[in-house]
């Protein structure tokens, strides 16, 4: 429970530090706190007992995903320290809001009660509604904030309705209670299954799976780039973790009911994401569709939650099978997040330099302007496609491998075909960066935090190749 105390307290401290006369201390404070939080999650300090009457539980799955979420947020906060030339970015407030949002993300990774799931989603989202519009005078930002807010509220409404129906059907909010109920009551129960369906749709909104994806490109494009980076990494991973936890812990028995829905969502999401990305000329929109397509692959990873549950009576994390579906999900999510982070750091740097260009052509000649960034971009994009030995490859290997082992052959073939399409659009920025000349010849120096974040993420993408054995078994 230590994380649930540390993170909000930290957020409050950061906000007060920002209000008071110690503005210079806000970001260092936030980062120190996040490092401490990451340490708590990684070494599982003070996290062992279930608490709040079993509303949350830090099993290995929860602490593993919490660590990932905390680290990704820390990287974003670190980037706040590299302010753009414009000084209208309120660093302190943004850091505070990010920390509140992170608290919600950690709830989503650790909940064992549907009320906690709802609270987590809200705590995660509300700060983002504000952050998306943090450029107050920017029309695009305002539009993004409003769109995100309206769509997000809609999704939460559906989610809440689903929770209500489930409660009406089973009399339970608790995941384990729902599991026990569903095992005792096989067969079709309208309230139970309609509730499950609405929960699935609500979460599909949050992970931006098609056909609930349509807000994503506009919101990603309009929001400040750092917030987009946060949304496409931490927010998406938190939602996916929540999704997995729900399916693996409460509904493994009902896999026949939700499996085909997820397959349908995955097929649609992969098609929309990959084909949509192919048509994009703007980089942030490209990354938005990239995020949608990866939501599709992550949905395939979620399917393994049912397999593990069916096989091993739903261990705490669903990781009953030797093949480690939760570990596969973690590796996939971590690789996706690290690569996406690099892409957005590169974009944020260029955006600042160009002053508002949105097209991929802004990357032209990056190799001579900042070789380091160009190499990082290449690594990130190749990892997103799934080229070995980068993390993205291992994510795909384990996710597809589990799906094949479950006999979902058609789905994997479909995903494989669309991965090849991915090569065509992920190479667009790389081609600009490496094979085209820039109209601007001046160097593009990186600031310390930017350099650090790109380096850490690139190293992580390689390191994921060295450590999958340990990671697969860890959850």
């Amino acid at each position, binding site marked *: 429970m230590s994380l649930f105390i540390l993170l909000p307290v930290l957020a409050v401290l950061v906000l007060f530090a920002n209000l008071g006369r110690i503005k210079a201390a806000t970001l260092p404070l936030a980062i120190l706190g996040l490092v401490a939080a990451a340490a708590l999650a990684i070494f599982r300090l003070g996290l062992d007992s279930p608490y709040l009457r079993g509303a949350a539980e830090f099993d290995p799955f929860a602490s593993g995903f919490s660590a990932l979420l905390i680290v990704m947020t820390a990287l974003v906060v670190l980037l706040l320290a590299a302010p753009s030339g414009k000084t209208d970015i309120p660093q302190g407030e943004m850091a505070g809001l990010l920390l509140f949002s992170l608290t919600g993300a950690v709830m989503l990774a650790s909940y064992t009660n549907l009320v906690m799931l709802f609270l987590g989603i809200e705590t995660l989202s509300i700060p983002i509604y504000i952050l998306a519009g943090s450029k107050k005078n920017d029309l695009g930002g305002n539009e993004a904030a409003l769109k995100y807010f309206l769509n997000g509220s809609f999704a939460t409404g559906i989610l809440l309705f689903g929770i209500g129906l489930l409660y009406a059907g089973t009399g339970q909010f608790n995941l384990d209670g729902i599991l026990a109920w569903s095992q005792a009551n096989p067969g079709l129960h309208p309230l139970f299954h309609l509730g499950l369906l609405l929960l699935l749709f609500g979460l599909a909104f949050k992970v931006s799976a098609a056909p609930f994806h349509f807000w994503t490109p506009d919101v990603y494009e309009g929001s400040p780039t750092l917030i987009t980076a946060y949304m496409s990494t931490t927010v998406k991973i938190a939602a996916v973790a929540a999704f997995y936890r729900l399916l693996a812990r409460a509904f493994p028995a009902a896999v026949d009911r939700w499996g085909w829905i997820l397959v349908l969502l995955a097929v649609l999401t992969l098609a929309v994401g990959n084909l949509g990305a192919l048509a994009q000329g703007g980089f942030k929109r490209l990354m938005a569709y990239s995020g949608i397509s990866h939501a599709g692959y992550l949905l395939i990873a979620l399917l393994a939650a049912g397999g593990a549950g069916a096989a091993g009576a739903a261990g705490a994390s669903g990781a009953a099978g030797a*093949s480690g579906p939760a570990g596969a999900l973690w590796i996939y999510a971590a690789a996706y997040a690290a690569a996406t982070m690099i892409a957005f750091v590169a974009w944020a740097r260029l955006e600042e330099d160009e002053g508002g260009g949105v097209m991929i052509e802004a990357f032209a000649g990056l190799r001579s302007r900042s070789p380091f960034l160009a190499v990082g971009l290449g690594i990130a994009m190749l990892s997103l496609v799934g080229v070995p030995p980068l993390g993205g490859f291992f994510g795909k290997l384990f996710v597809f491998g589990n799906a094949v082992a479950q006999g979902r052959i058609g789905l994997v073939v479909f995903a494989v075909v669309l991965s090849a399409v991915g090569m*065509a659009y992920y190479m667009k920025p790389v081609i600009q960066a490496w094979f085209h000349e820039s109209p601007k010849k001046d160097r593009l120096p990186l600031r310390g935090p930017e350099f650090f974040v790109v380096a850490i993420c690139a190293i992580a993408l390689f390191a994921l190749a060295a450590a999958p054995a340990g990671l*697969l078994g860890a959850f």
Partner: protein
Amino acid sequence: MVTLLLILLPLVGGLLVMALRESAARAVASIVALATALVAIGAAAAWGSGAGLHYGLSLDWIPSWGISFSLGLDGLSLPLVLLTVLVAPVALILATRNEGRRSPILYGLILAMEAGLVGVFAARDAVVFYLFWELALVPVYFIAGFWGGEKRVPVTLKFLVYTVAGSLFMLFGILYVHAFTAAPQGFSLSAFYSASLPPGAAPWILAAFAVAFAIKMPLFPFHTWQSDTYHEAPASGSLLLAALMAKMGLYGVMRWMLPVFPTAFAGLQPLFIALGVVGVVWGSLVALAQKDMKRLLAWSSFSHTGLMAAGVFSLGIIGFQGGVLQMVAHGLSIAGLFLAVDIFESRTGGRQIGTVGGLAHRNGAFAVLFVLLALSAFGLPLTAGFAGEFLLLISLSKVSLWWALGGGIGVILGAVLYLQWIRKSFLGPEPKEVAAFKLKPSEAGALGVLALAGIVLGVYPKPLLELARPTLDALLNVIGAR
């Protein structure tokens, strides 16, 4: 350890070279390439005998999935590794011509690709194989995309998407076969050889592997990327693609496709042989119509690969031996020819056939070396190309005389092709617009070594055939055993 050294030396060396300045990079790259070649030659000299694995290495990597980092050399991989370490320095020689265009990175990429290729030929685990398979691709994409010609960007992107699509199908196939390996499931070669696939699915999974290998070779009708890519890539890139990367496909067929799906393949054998033979004839016919030398080499190479594939698909020890011999022979001659074309272009200012002739008057030695390489390429007796093609055609004739006839027509057309080229470019009246020129020592040396190797292998192919024989017998046993 030796195998790992053969991979790490060029890989680490390549990364190091990228960070150096031009002159230092050139020296270090040459040293690394030569050292790698020496290690490989040393490994071959200390070979001994037997079908078994030499210089094997196996480290646990992802035990819960049965993935281990296994490498090793045998009679099938060693010839191709030797080819790789001999041809990579030639690519470096060609690369030194791109002065001023970030050459250290080019040298580094060539070395990285060398590492990938050695890894492909040495991998004993399907995931490791896939890893090196892609590691060999990425550098050559950047080589072609950065140092290539005018239309390089769309052309190389097509090449990349095409080959990656193939690779991803193979990845799916690998995962599928893995799901049917005996417990404890694994990705090792032996696990794959004893996997029992459901008969209904096997042809489809075979197709997933076949697509990847057919695109790499390329096999008809998956060749549409080839001509444009060879044309747009810089000379060093075309050389790597034609001499080495094309061999990855056929190697994959022999190592990872035929022994894993013998039953499924038996039903599809006529189709595969037909694709190879069609490629032989198609390639040489199109090559006859080419004016651009690099395009000519691309199509001729396509034709040769078709014959190699058809011979290997005929499933006999003669066809397998012919395949190995011809892979080496073709790699040597095509590497020499790409170097020669680049020399030709740099000295005459163009590489269109027919615009400049009579080059024998300007540099006799160059003409002789070119002719030797061309003779080996189209398979004149006493050259390696002849020995290889002869074995391949015999093997084909054992399946059906008609296939051999088709292959033979292609070989004859190839002879016409190269003889015409020699006549138009090297014979004839003195060219007024070209002054006499000399070959650099590196150029003359590389051409000489490649031409000589082709002749030595042609006159006395026995050591190579004997080296490969036990391994090929073992592979055929696996194929026949099921």
